[in-house]
């Protein structure tokens, strides 16, 4: 609120005792109807229309500033006419300066880089309570911002300021209508009762209450059930700090506290002065026309201007001159005395003058230290001024910042007068206002200086943004026969090769060893050929620390490379908590848990894959197995990606048939899932499609003719290319199911994928029971993507459905050709055992991040169904017929 109405407000907001007469209700209804029609008509106005009207109103207000000030002083007997003229001019000219170029109609702001627009919607009918202490300036200000925002207002003036308020409303209304505003846009209650206010506050067609009044008015507004801008009382603490420019500060305080005889509720109430400058400050106050009260005079003031019962100021003192108050109290002062200064020793009820005093009486406190001074300011702030205004005079920025942290005030005015400073636009760049939001501490919904944007509903028009995507792969990928020779180009003082017993035994480790510089200290760490467990990782990290490795060469399949990735992570960042890093996330870029960037070591990771499937040599994923709990933990972060990938087919020439099939089908699954993923992009599609083409062509040859060098080479490339696709597009629900099933029953990853694959393809090609929200895709395209894959493979078909069917059939034929079991039952797992495992597998699959990018949101019930389909299996023919049934 602009002034404290506490002492006077019972006349405006007391609870109603008698019901309104029918005539009175008709009168009030008429006002509301008129305002409602006006506000509706106003919605058709353009920005140019309202700007033209506002300018005319501002000029009219400026022209009538003195007339209205004289009326206000004459009627209210409060304040200083000359100051009220300034207030009226600030309320018009300064408000206009702020609003004139602001858009308040239609699109008011645009954020093209965010694809956002803000569009203004008027509030409608506003019911506005007006204060006694700034009656006309508040009317002028509210009328201007109401027209600027195309709202209608019904004003309810304080009874003791009705004439001046209604005159101000008349001037604004007539000017507005003359310049085109809708009739009935403003109305001022003729002599009104408290019941009138209560009626209007609760009226269904009143959209907002703007209560510039005391705490009871604010409470009544907020209790009405209507949106309200209620602004509360103040008690402005001022810290006059020892580094302040004393001469300027004291003039500012006097200007502010005497402005309109102290009626602005942002004006200074208690000045806390640092001990070092206390005497000098009082001396300067005195020189500039303040009377410093002695102990006896202070006591007299306390007893006279503060109500001993309520602890609040006496209404008779509000807005009166210092000399008049002194005379009334019985304090002899010079005739030109501007201000009465009363030293106080504390804050609270036992120190009556520490409360808000809307008259030229200022209490001062001698602070023994900065700490004590700040605490006393906090006390004042909490003694009725929370959320309102505070002032500090200082050159010490640290103190100013500290003050702003400990004081709860919507406006913290620095090195300038509190009252005029809080009004904004005069001494600072605050938004000009005649209504101070005091935040929740003051029972308000805002801490802002109320202005046009509080008189608008701001609609946000949010256009779809094109999500940023990425394509990240290792910097260096060397491929084709003997690509391993490239290892020698990487300098290293200490290299650890991580590999498996078999690979060491068949001489693959030696091949790598031959390409490492003789100056490099080389160590070989042999780990079990199985998906890594934490114990293995820990042993690896110990070895890396022991050898002070600066290079790790992972030679093996996905398990070995995954183990090396996690070893590197823990070696470089021992603080990394694997459990925490595996926390679920929806979007890689918005994940809560970030991978560590602080490293105590740095080691290059070169990944040499010895299988053609996982593509772990280029992926940012690593899977850790927890055998005790029968589950796998997937870590995902681009910091896990190897620095160098070597795709050399010589390491896969001796791969056993089963491994060729298992890893090969993993590659196929990667390509299929990346292709339909919600994160798929043209970049990943090109990789997925090419990998699929290579795998369908060469996997059967590599399986049936293991010595075919071309087939091995192409499958090895296919695996790496598919991995580049899913490294960026991720995989899908097939992997989620396979992870859960594989971990529970100890089935190889590729084999587990194969068991799920046809069922998941058919599932994804259906119209989903539930779509997966994704900013990366437009429409549901999984079936069309499958059809494109069928085209790439040359499978024929005329419609999307035919092509999808052909792709599923081709996949099943591939599975058969690779001699895969086609049902989980074939693995010897009993139905009972499987049924027992399903609930936990479903939970695990649902939590698996792989499923997040699936084109179709996998529901728990659907996961159960998919598991059972995989258990029972389908022959080629049956699978096709099932597909027909599902898509029919």
């Amino acid at each position, binding site marked *: 609120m602009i002034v404290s109405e506490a002492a006077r407000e019972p006349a405006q907001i007391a609870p109603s005792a008698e019901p309104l007469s029918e005539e009175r209700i008709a009168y009030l209804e008429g006002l509301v109807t*008129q305002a*409602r*029609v*006006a*506000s*509706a*008509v106003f*919605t*058709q106005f353009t920005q140019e229309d309202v700007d033209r009207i506002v300018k005319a109103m501002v000029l009219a207000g400026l022209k009538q500033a003195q007339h209205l000030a004289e009326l206000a002083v004459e009627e209210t007997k409060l304040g200083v006419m000359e100051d009220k003229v300034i207030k009226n001019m600030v309320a018009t000219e300064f408000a206009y300066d702020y609003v004139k170029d602001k858009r308040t109609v239609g699109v008011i702001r645009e954020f093209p880089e965010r694809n956002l627009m803000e569009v203004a919607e008027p509030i*409608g009918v506003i019911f506005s309570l007006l204060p006694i202490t700034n009656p006309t300036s508040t009317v002028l200000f509210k009328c201007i911002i109401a027209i600027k925002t195309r709202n209608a207002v019904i004003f309810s003036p304080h009874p003791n300021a009705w004439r001046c308020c209604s005159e101000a409303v008349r001037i604004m209304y007539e000017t507005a209508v003359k310049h085109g505003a*809708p*009739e*009935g846009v403003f109305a001022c209650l003729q002599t009104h009762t408290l019941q009138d206010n209560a009626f209007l506050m609760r009226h269904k067609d009143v959209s907002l209450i703007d209560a510039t009044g005391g705490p009871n008015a604010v409470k009544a507004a907020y209790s009405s059930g209507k949106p309200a801008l209620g602004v509360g009382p103040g008690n402005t603490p001022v810290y006059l700090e020892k580094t302040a420019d004393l001469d300027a500060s004291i003039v500012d305080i006097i200007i502010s506290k005497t402005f309109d005889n102290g009626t602005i509720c942002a004006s200074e109430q208690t000045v806390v002065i640092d001990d070092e400058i206390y005497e000098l400050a009082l001396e300067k106050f005195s020189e500039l026309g303040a009377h410093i009260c002695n102990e006896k005079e202070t006591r007299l003031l306390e007893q006279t201007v503060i109500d001993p019962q309520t602890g609040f100021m006496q209404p008779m003192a509000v807005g009166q001159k210092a000399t008049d108050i002194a005379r009334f109290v019985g304090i002899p002062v010079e005739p030109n005395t501007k201000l009465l200064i009363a030293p106080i020793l504390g804050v609270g009820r036992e120190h009556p003058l520490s409360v808000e005093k809307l008259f030229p009486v200022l209490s001062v406190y001698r602070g023994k230290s900065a700490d004590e001074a700040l605490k006393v300011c906090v006390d004042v702030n909490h003694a009725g001024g929370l959320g309102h205004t505070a002032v500090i005079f200082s050159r010490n920025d640290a103190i100013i910042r500290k003050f702003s942290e400990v004081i709860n005030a919507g406006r913290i005015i620095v090195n300038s007068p509190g009252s005029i400073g809080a009004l904004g636009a005069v001494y600072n760049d605050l938004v000009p206002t005649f209504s101070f939001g005091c935040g929740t501490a003051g029972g308000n919904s805002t801490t802002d200086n109320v202005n046009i944007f509080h008189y608008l509903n701001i609609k946000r028009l949010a256009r779809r943004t094109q999500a940023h995507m990425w394509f990240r792969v290792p910097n260096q990928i060397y491929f084709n026969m003997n690509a391993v020779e490239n290892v020698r180009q990487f300098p290293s003082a200490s290299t650890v090769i991580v590999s498996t017993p078999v690979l060491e035994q068949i001489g693959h480790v030696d091949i790598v060893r031959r390409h490492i510089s003789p100056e490099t200290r080389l160590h070989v760490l042999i780990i079990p050929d199985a998906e890594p467990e934490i114990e293995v990782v820990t042993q690896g990290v110990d070895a890396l620390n022991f050898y002070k490795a600066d290079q790790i060469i992972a030679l093996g399949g996905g398990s070995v490379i995954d183990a090396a990735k996690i070893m590197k992570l823990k070696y470089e960042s021992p603080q990394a908590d694997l459990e925490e890093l595996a926390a679920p996330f929806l979007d890689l870029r918005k994940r809560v848990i970030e991978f560590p960037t602080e490293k105590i070591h740095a080691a290059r990771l070169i990944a040499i894959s010895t299988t053609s499937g996982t593509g772990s040599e280029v992926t940012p994923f690593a899977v850790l197995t927890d055998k005790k709990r029968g589950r796998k933990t997937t870590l995902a972060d681009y910091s896990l990606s190897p620095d160098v990938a070597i795709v050399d087919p010589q390491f896969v020439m001796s791969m056993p048939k089963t491994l060729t099939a298992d890893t090969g089908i993993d590659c196929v699954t990667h390509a299929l899932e990346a292709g339909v993923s919600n994160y798929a992009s043209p970049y990943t599609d090109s990789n997925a499609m090419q990998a699929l083409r290579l795998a369908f062509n060469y996997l059967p040859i590599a399986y049936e003719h293991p010595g075919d060098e071309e087939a091995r080479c192409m499958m090895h490339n296919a695996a790496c290319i598919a991995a580049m696709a899913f490294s960026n597009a991720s995989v899908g629900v097939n992997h989620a199911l396979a992870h859960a099933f594989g971990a529970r029953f100890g089935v190889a990853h590729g084999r587990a994928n194969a068991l799920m694959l046809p069922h998941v393809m058919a599932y994804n090609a259906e119209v989903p029971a539930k779509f997966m929200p994704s900013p990366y895709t437009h429409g549901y395209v999984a079936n069309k993507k499958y059809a494109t894959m069928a085209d790439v493979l040359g499978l024929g078909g005329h419609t999307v459905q035919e092509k999808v069917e052909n792709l599923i059939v081709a996949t099943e034929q591939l599975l058969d050709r690779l001699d895969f079991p086609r049902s989980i039952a074939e693995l010897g797992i009993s139905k009972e055992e499987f049924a027992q495992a399903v609930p936990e597998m479903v939970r695990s699959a649902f939590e698996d991040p792989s499923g997040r990018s699936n084109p179709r949101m996998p529901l728990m019930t659907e996961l159960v169904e998919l598991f059972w389909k995989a258990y029972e299996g389908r022959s080629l023919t049956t699978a096709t017929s099932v597909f027909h049934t599902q898509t029919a």
Partner: protein
Amino acid sequence: MAIALWLNVDGKGVIPTLQEAVERLDGAEGELVLDFVTVCRIDSMALRAMEGLATIADQKAVKVVLRDVNVDVYKVLKLVKLARRFSFSNSNHDRRTTKLEGRHAEPSAK
């Protein structure tokens, strides 16, 4: 259904047409069409006149159809709760007045 009376509302003078419409309600044979195609904006007085027209039309059981009302004016009619008292048609949907009635009219207060 035969349209008994069709009046073009002058965008620069809505009220005289509305007054004329009131006078001719008796001969409207159940339906009166007011063509708003040239009306860009509507003011408080016109709204009052429309409310009066709606009241008399109700008494005389005449359906008043507002044709080609622009969306800004339509929003004003919604805000002052007058839209529910009229039917609306659009020249793009010629001869579908009856069907459009249900689509555009706001829920009745009754």
